[in-house]
């Protein structure tokens, strides 16, 4: 438990700084690279929680595909590469107030609702993270939502091609 707590805090602090880097950096490519750190940290937290299949899907889909899409988007829109304060609009102060207010409300609520709740990482938790168990749940209990989400992904990607096509 101690080792897992130490790992949690190291990863959490790195994720926190990287997340702030995503929304504060002046360089748009650096923002994409900070996003990789956050996504890898989230994958590591999944492993800490025993959800190994979701962790590797996170690495494959997010770090492997989504970040590459972002880098393509950055290149195709020829964004200002560095030294431009143009990336932020003039709502920075109200946005910070809104985000801090939301964070305060959520933290107070969570401390009130789940103050003493603990996660015990025993064999039962690790059993729910196994790929066989997750696959069983997807293709037996959740097979209709799975097919719906497949159609949604297909429709969204065809729609993206249609929107971005030059004619």
């Amino acid at each position, binding site marked *: 438990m101690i080792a*897992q707590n130490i790992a949690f805090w190291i990863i*959490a602090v790195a*994720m926190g700084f990287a*997340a702030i880097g*995503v*929304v504060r950096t002046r360089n*748009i490519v650096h923002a994409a690279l900070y*996003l990789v750190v*956050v996504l890898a940290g*989230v994958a590591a*937290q*999944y492993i800490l*929680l025993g*959800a190994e*299949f*979701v962790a590797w899907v*996170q690495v494959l889909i*997010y770090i492997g*595909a*989504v970040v590459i*899409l*972002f880098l393509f*988007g950055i290149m*195709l*829109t*020829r964004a200002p590469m560095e030294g431009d304060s*143009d*990336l*932020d*609009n003039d*709502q920075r102060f109200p*946005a*910070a107030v*809104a*985000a*801090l207010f*939301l*964070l305060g409300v959520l933290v107070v609520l*969570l401390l009130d609702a*789940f*103050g003493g*709740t603990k*996660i015990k990482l025993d064999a*039962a*938790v690790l059993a*729910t993270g196994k790929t066989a168990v*997750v696959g069983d*749940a*997807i293709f037996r209990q*959740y097979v209709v939502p799975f097919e719906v*989400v497949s159609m*949604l*992904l297909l429709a*969204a*990607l065809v*729609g*993206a091609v249609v*929107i*971005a096509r*030059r004619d």
Partner: protein
Amino acid sequence: MIMNQFLILSAFLFCVGVYGVLARRNGVLVLMSVELMLNGVNLNLIAFSARLHAVSGQVFALFIITIAAAEVGVGLAIVLLIYRNLRSPDLDGVDQLKG
């Protein structure tokens, strides 16, 4: 481990994402902030899945990852179209509906 470690971390990720969506002008960076928010929600789902020994949290996290991939595809296509029409990826130019 304490449940709130994970829940407060995911709340923090969500709020950083909210700040980014509100304060960023560049369309690609707004989409990145949306990804931060979705990852906060996913971490929440996995934490509850571990707490309740239920696999459904992980299944829904997988669905959210799929939806996020679709959202990034469509979102980047829209940003590309905005760039082509306005010569800039900034979302400030898209205010035709402003009253």
